[in-house]
């Protein structure tokens, strides 16, 4: 499996994702620069990491969604590649139209950093197939994780099994407590929780490992 993490100006979880993928999967992980207009078609997985790309100015993820690399990210998806957007990466994916819906300010109007309990709504996706049959606990850290989608869109998500993860109790005002959304072909996942922050026993939580391991199960070593 070949993986790369995109670095936007203001990304701040890029190193954590690189380290997390390396330690859990034992693979080399490349970094891609946002000004690149092309990257190697051999990447199986591309990750848009968390952070504050472009300072979250205008709207979270809006400017990054228009950066040079995104046209190639779209081609990667068209090629059938896997794409994971974490936190700000999820925001970029919705702004870029690669996932439906949008993310607006938390209902409580505050940044929230804490562990949340998550239900796995779809256990068959490339990102969730290796998850144990139980709820997950993952950390969140965001100000704009309030997932918004209209009724028709929500119905489509439900009908096509595109909801990957939901908060077990309301956290930020998200419609249907949605924490993570899949594309129709299930090869793109955006989620607000940070799996890369829960892969190391030293920090007291390893629930994020199985998300990465699911990808390895799907794609192969």
């Amino acid at each position, binding site marked *: 499996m070949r993986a790369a993490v995109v670095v936007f100006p*203001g990304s701040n*979880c890029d190193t*954590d994702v690189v380290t997390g993928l390396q330690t859990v999967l034992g693979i080399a992980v490349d970094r891609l620069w946002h000004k690149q207009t092309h990257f190697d078609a051999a990447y199986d997985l591309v990750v848009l990491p968390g952070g*504050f790309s472009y300072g979250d100015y205008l709207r979270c993820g809006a400017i990054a969604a228009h950066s040079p690399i995104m046209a190639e990210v779209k081609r990667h998806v068209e090629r059938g590649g896997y794409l994971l957007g974490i936190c700000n990466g999820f925001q970029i994916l919705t702004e870029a139209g690669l996932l439906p819906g949008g993310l607006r300010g938390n209902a409580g109007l505050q*940044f929230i950093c804490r*562990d949340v309990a998550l239900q796995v709504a779809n256990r068959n996706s490339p990102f969730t197939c290796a998850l144990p049959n139980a709820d997950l606990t993952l950390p969140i*850290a965001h100000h704009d994780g309030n997932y918004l989608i209209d009724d028709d869109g929500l119905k489509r998500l439900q009908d096509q099994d595109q909801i990957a993860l939901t908060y077990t109790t309301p956290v930020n005002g998200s419609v249907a407590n949605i924490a993570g959304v899949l594309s129709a072909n299930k090869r793109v996942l955006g989620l607000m929780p940070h799996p890369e*922050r829960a892969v190391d026993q030293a920090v*007291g939580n390893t629930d994020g490992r199985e998300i990465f391991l699911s990808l390895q199960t799907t794609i192969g070593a």
Partner: protein
Amino acid sequence: MSKPVATQAAIVATDEAPTYSPQVLRGLGLKVDEYEKIVELLGRAPNFTELAVFGALWSEHCSYKSSKKYLKTLPTTAPWVIQGPGENAGVIDLGDGLAAVFKIESHNHPSFIEPYQGSATGVGGILRDVFTMGARPIALLNALRFGDPSHAKTRSLMAGVVAGIGGYGNCVGVPTVGGECQFHACYNGNNLVNAMAVGIAQADKIFYAKAAGIGNPVVYVGAKTGRDGVHGATMASAAFSASEQASRPTVQVGDPFKEKLLIEACLELMNEDAIIAIQDMGAAGLTSSACEMASKGGIGIRLDLSAVPLREADLQPYEIMLSESQERMLMVLKPEATARAQAIFAKWDLDAVVVGSLIAEPVLEMQWHGESAGVIPIAALVDEAPQYDRPVAALASPSQQLVTLTKPVAILPALQQLLASPNLASKRWIWQQYDRHVGVNSLSDSGAATASDAAVVRVTGTRKALAMATDCNPFYGAADPYIGGAQAVVESWRNLVASGAKPLALTNNLNFGNPEKPEIMAQIKAAVTGIGDAARALDYPVVSGNVSLYNDTDGVGIYPTPVIGGVGLLADYNQRLSMALTQSGLSLIQLGSGDNSWLGRSQYLMTVEGQEAGAPPSVDFAAERQVGELVLALNRQQRLAACHDISDGGLLVALAEMWLTGAGTDATTSLPLNVQLNPDLPASDAGFWFGEDQARYLVATLHPDQVLAAAAEAGVPALLLGQTTAVAAAAGATAGEMVGKLTLPDGQSITRAALQTAHEAWLPAYMQG
């Protein structure tokens, strides 16, 4: 100094010697006698730009003119100290080629005027002090003080300050891992916002401000210059009056996005052999950074102010020199490396401009569109800044009056009341707004089972971890400033020990009122003496710091608040100690002191009795050291399951905090935990349960006999208090029926849920308004 040399450069408007009214001088933060000294040093009257430069560098903020006499007495060296005070931040050796770089700094006045931007730029400034030295910032901490919760401004100030700290730290991607927050009416007109940053560098790749190499280019990197905080440094040195609050200078606005780009670009450039000297533009902006680099190098600097990138075209030279626009760096580069540097800055979308060069004559030479805008000998600005030996009043002798309790003692209601009081209530509402996890090295997390007295952050790629804590008890300092200073040092030392770390060094933030008042100078003198004595006794030197004076509104000054930021090292992060009780069968033992009685200036006295009275507890450095070393030894022998220092609130509050942290369940069985206190303890002695005697730790252990024996051998008093037990799993009991309880010696008990509610509810309810 030698007489200033006449320079060949023409001075703007020298036809007639300018004169300045006392109002103009005051506007620049200068007194009339200081002006006279400037004229004497220059041998002529300064032009306005020159005068403004003097005003900025001679401000209290930049020159420490009131406090330097006392700061000089602090211990600043140890074999592991690489750099003490005087640079952007202190540097200590962590072994294996690594160093920790850290400092604390205040943004009190700006945060009172504009709480969000004031606190945000405070975080930005302290981060720059750390990465300027070549360190990647790995942790942020803070120390906050607000006015009485009932005061009209407290809620909005706190909301803004917390949002600002989070807004900046979260965006730059440095975890905010620790801090403290207290309330008191003495802060009604002067809140305190002290921010601490800690970074990791290669010990042999520390960058300094010392300029060298005549002709080398001086490069300006980062944000454009605007009128932000013009006179900010002098504002930070002037007491407020309520009516003056309308005439606000332009507020400094932070851009954490730009800061993030600066961090990455500077650290990338530092990997190249390109930088000779580097300095961030903090208080007094370009003036301070240019003069500091020149002064340290014993060299001069020529600045072309017309080359400085401006946000507004009409800025005047003095405004350019004084601007405190954020996210700007000044560096001296090796000429052959400038192209490589430009490429790195361009990669990160940063503007870098050559704004000057180093010159042999040790002067600050300012040019403006081809003409001289002023020439000042560097020594006159830096070395000749006034040093005041301000009048010091005799300290009122600390009150020795015995505390008289006026209300009947009821232990459990008092515990609930204390845990719900503003100063002891859970600060979850605050820390939940800070990204504490980015970097995936935060090994202790607030509120979680991993929580520790100090924040523990792993050093990437090693077994090492740093422990960090900020501490001060202003209620002690108000009664006895010497104890206030000394106790802040020992409490930070204890917090590091309680996390399993060996304390190495500290940074201090001295927050006081108006130093022109002899009674305030007396506080400063006593508190600094206390800090120095404690730091010497504990081999815990001061490596950096900041002084914030004039925290005084309409003649009312704050309590002496000497905040200590401590840093310690865990050689192996698996030695870290948490404060949470996470298993049944633990014995609870108090180590140290043995004389649980001191209620003077305690939280119990303030909260339950409504009294601020008596003397604070005394501080015994030898006893602190003895019990601290015992705790570290027991931890090395893996005898301890949890540890918490006993400080404000006393023993029972410490015990409740350990029980309330984490899930409150046995980690193996998930059954709720009870805490059972031994029946032979005094059941209703307020001093025993809530006294704030120092040099004490509360430890939990599976090996009580060994711990008691080790304490006896070390000559440390030890007291077995009780045990944790698991709630019996009764057949058919629902989770709601299986509740953990705390049972006092007399059999009275309270549920964990009741205490949890009391502890957690106050702050969110208060912020809801």
